[in-house]
């Protein structure tokens, strides 16, 4: 079926198998392989993208539900080859270790900061609570997001 949607500000009109999930569309149709598949059932958050302004697991959105929607993936972060502040803060704070969860973590954090530019630590922890990381122990990630948000609480 033909589906029209926007990814990272670019308009697409694609012939897509209606049983594809959003992650399949991103990785297989559009070649946007920054989004990682982990569990494939909404448990790990590694495939998180921003869908109409909210963080969602791209393994749990069926392709026909993309019609008319706007999606942002990890590839949307930064400009002209420069990392954005959130990415820089992840590196500086040791929030990237094996890196597999990082695209999903960044997009959950980005969705939070879009909605709430000054979150508390509790709000940051809630926002990334659907993203599993088996390397960092989470504190470095929380520290990185706090640094960008400029929060002191």
């Amino acid at each position, binding site marked *: *079926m033909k589906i029209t949607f926007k990814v990272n500000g670019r308009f697409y009109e694609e012939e897509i*198998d*209606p*049983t594809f*999930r959003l992650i399949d569309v991103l990785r297989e149709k559009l070649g946007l392989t920054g989004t990682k598949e982990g569990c494939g*059932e*909404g*448990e790990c*958050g590694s495939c*998180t993208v921003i*869908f109409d302004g*909210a*963080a*969602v*697991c791209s*393994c*749990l*959105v*069926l392709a*026909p*539900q993309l*019609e008319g929607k706007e999606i942002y993936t990890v590839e949307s972060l930064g400009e002209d080859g420069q990392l954005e502040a959130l990415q820089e803060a992840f590196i500086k704070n040791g929030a990237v270790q094996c890196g597999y969860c990082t695209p999903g973590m960044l997009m*959950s954090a980005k969705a939070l900061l879009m909605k709430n530019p000054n979150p508390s630590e509790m709000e940051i922890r*809630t*926002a990334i*609570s*659907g*993203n599993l990381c088996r390397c960092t122990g989470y504190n470095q990630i929380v520290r990185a997001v706090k640094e960008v948000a400029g929060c002191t609480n």
Partner: protein
Amino acid sequence: MEEIRVSSPKTTVELIDILASFDGKYLMIAGCTDLLVDSRKKLNELELIIDLSSIKEMSYIKLLDNTLVIGAMTTFTEISESSLVKDHAFCLAKAAGSIGSPQIRNRATIGGNIANGSAAADSAPALLALDAWVRYTDRAGNVYTVGFQDFQENHRGQMKEKRAFIECIGIPLKDGNGFSSFIKLGSRSEVSISKLSLAAAISLDDKDIIRSFRLGMGSVGKTAVSVTAAEKLMEDRLLGDALIHELGVLLSKEIEELLKGRASMPYKKKAVIGLVQDLFNK
């Protein structure tokens, strides 16, 4: 193989037209957070997918005739953040906020949760405690309004045959002093399927005597259950620690009966005694 057709109606009128004119094998999808976990392969057996996510008129939370009404396509994020739900149905706001993860709550809908009918559905005990009703419409446009317990037991299984869809749920507002609460026990704090969940709605008089009490319990069988023996125990008594302990003992006996022969029974019958205390402490 022929490609599956997809319909994305924009209104409930369009949806009824689709249901009325199609006789093949179909599936309705809402947030898709359960469907894509259990049965993606089954999609290939379908002739038609009806995607409800474009029906804006089914996504709302409002007060109408002394009832809190929630459209079936309202997400759990919207429900958990709604001040109307927090004010009038706190246990539902709390249950909604404990479902899955932020990513799942952003997609999953209350209509999808009750239509899917998981034994561990977190909204179900809260809807029982709140005496909620469910309104659904069939392909002929007939509208049915039934109590949530009746819906779970007698109507949910007929939805496919009737080619029906859930329009909304309603929660009658209670007068006077009262509160409600929800708690669940899972293997971790987030993205956790309930091993046991409790929701209670209580009305008190000005001396803290319980005037009405409703309790829903989830993950204790095929559907969440309303515990009527708990209502009898609690009504006309003073709310306090001793009574809460008695309630725990009663629920423990209920679980022993409901889960007889199940491996999880010994754990759940002990756990409920602590869980019921947390229910009242939170």
